[in-house]
């Protein structure tokens, strides 16, 4: 079956089946909410993975774009009377524009320097959000109006479960397809060796910028979805810690592995829910998970499991 359908369709079908079956196992709406959180985070993580895993460029400020998307659906309707869906688009457009404008100078940098510059960018976005309280409600955040489509008011964890699941499927489909396009190949080339890619005629700057913009749009849409689902936004969603969480999802799941990003998001969202008993220990454990997984699973969970099953099969 795997050979008949191809790897890509197999992954998409498997994901859709998991999404369809999970609700049968859920005893309460709380579970729908947690699962929806996983889908949203996975969407942002997949976008970041296109930048980090495919194109080989790190971003430690990605929550900034997530925050722009989230605040777009809050500020758009409240201050400009925009329809929520239009606000999502405006958010995505703003994120893309910001990524496009700062991407060129930032992506010239490498290693530590790239990490710091993206971090600085993310922190600046979070600072603007926290400080411009007239627009954003400041550190306390602001409410987000309920999404309404043709008179239907979208609310409830179950509904949002299906909407975010649909978004994630589209995001996954796009990311998987990207692999076999000239763009995806260019990303891989500049990931392996920028100089070799340049020699082979890849316009390095342009493709880095493309990856950055794509990743920004993913994060922005995920941010909008989360904000509308929660009915509330606060600056933490654009903050440094959230950026680190997104990077951890990508690295934990496996750089370059789309399925890995979903698994990484699931682990990082579900684990704190399981550990609510130890609420005081949340940061301590998050730090521990990051350190341990970076030391012992450098390739990430999914590539490591794939390697193990390959070995077992032989």
């Amino acid at each position, binding site marked *: 079956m795997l050979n008949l359908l191809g790897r890509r369709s197999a992954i998409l079908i498997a994901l859709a089946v998991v999404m369809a079956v999970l609700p049968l196992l859920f005893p309460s709406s709380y579970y729908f909410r947690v699962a929806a959180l996983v889908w949203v985070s996975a969407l942002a993580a997949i976008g970041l993975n296109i930048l980090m895993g495919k194109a080989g460029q790190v971003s430690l400020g990605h929550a900034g774009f997530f925050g722009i998307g989230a605040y777009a659906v809050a500020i758009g309707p409240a201050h400009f009377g925009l329809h929520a869906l239009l606000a999502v688009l405006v958010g995505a457009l703003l994120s893309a524009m910001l990524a496009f404008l700062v991407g060129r100078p930032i992506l010239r940098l490498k290693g530590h320097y790239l*990490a*710091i510059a993206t971090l*600085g960018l993310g922190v600046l976005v979070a600072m603007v959000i926290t400080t411009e309280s007239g627009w954003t409600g400041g550190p306390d955040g602001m409410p987000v109006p309920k999404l309404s489509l043709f008179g239907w008011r979208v609310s409830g964890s179950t509904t949002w479960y299906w909407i975010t699941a649909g978004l994630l499927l589209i995001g996954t489909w796009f990311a998987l397809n990207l692999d076999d396009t000239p763009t995806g190949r260019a990303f891989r080339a500049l990931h392996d060796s920028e*100089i070799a890619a340049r020699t082979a005629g890849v316009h390095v700057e342009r493709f880095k910028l493309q990856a950055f913009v794509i990743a920004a749009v993913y994060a922005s849409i995920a941010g909008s979805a989360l904000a509308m689902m929660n009915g509330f936004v606060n600056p933490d969603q654009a903050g440094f810690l959230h950026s*680190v969480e997104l990077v951890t999802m990508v690295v934990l799941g496996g750089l370059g592995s789309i399925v890995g990003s979903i698994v990484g998001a699931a682990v990082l969202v579900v684990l704190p829910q399981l550990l609510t008993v130890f609420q*005081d220990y949340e940061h301590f454990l998050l730090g521990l998970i*990051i350190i341990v997984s970076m030391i012992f699973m450098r390739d990430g969970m999914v590539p490591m499991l794939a390697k193990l099953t390959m070995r077992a099969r032989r």
Partner: protein
Amino acid sequence: MSELLQFLISGLTVGAVYALVALGFTLVYHAADVVNFAQGEFVMLGGMVTVFAYAAGVPLPLAALLAVIVAVVVGLLLYWLAIAPARGASAVSLIIITIGASILLRGAAQIVFDKQFHKLPAFSGDTPIHLLGAVIQPQSLWVLGGAALVVLTLYYVMERTLIGKAVVATAANRLAARLVGVNVTTVMALAFGGSAAIGAIAGILITPITLTSYDVGTLLALKGFAAAMLGGMGNPLGAVIGGLLLGLLESFGAGYVSSTYKDAIAFIVILAVLFVAPQGLVGRRTVERV
């Protein structure tokens, strides 16, 4: 004029702290090629341990010494438990590990101590000194003097002692250093311990002025990093200049431009420096070989 002097003094005081954090960054970056994001947590540990030991009845100098020792132990543990096992990982993986360590330490501080803000008494009273119309807190002099002492000590160690030469050798070429008999692992552990001590001292000195809590480390680490970057990564003199300059920029920026965006200045500086001169003010241009 008195206003200018006032901004100058407060800028230099904060700048001295940034300079110390930047020095810690530089030391570790120099010796171990790691950007240590947990650097700010050493500052936090310095302040918090002193506060809690002092509150428990330990005399202030002893409490401060205890804080430095705790920070050094944490720094060594960080190296042995998190950095050394990850040998050969990419620059970004190492950054993520140290960010993980910083989150872990913050979490631990939240459990061991609490989430409140804490204050230490100023070391030599609160009677302000008046100078040309500006008001100087005596603690500012402690900060400036302490920072100068740390810088001079570090300079002496690096230039005049065998340990310092080993650090310089390791930074220049790890393999070559190993070949001439430098124990590179020890040097790297020393760098972590040393940078932890420097961070803790900064934390102890500044706590009477700015207060401390379990989460002061992140912003300080980022600003210290901006300072190190401004001066050129891996250059101790640059770190000091960068720190003081950043402090002055913040102080004058807050005074004359906008106080709400005071904290943003560091990040604008990071981005501006990276865009214009990625090698920093005092750094050298390096060429990457294929």
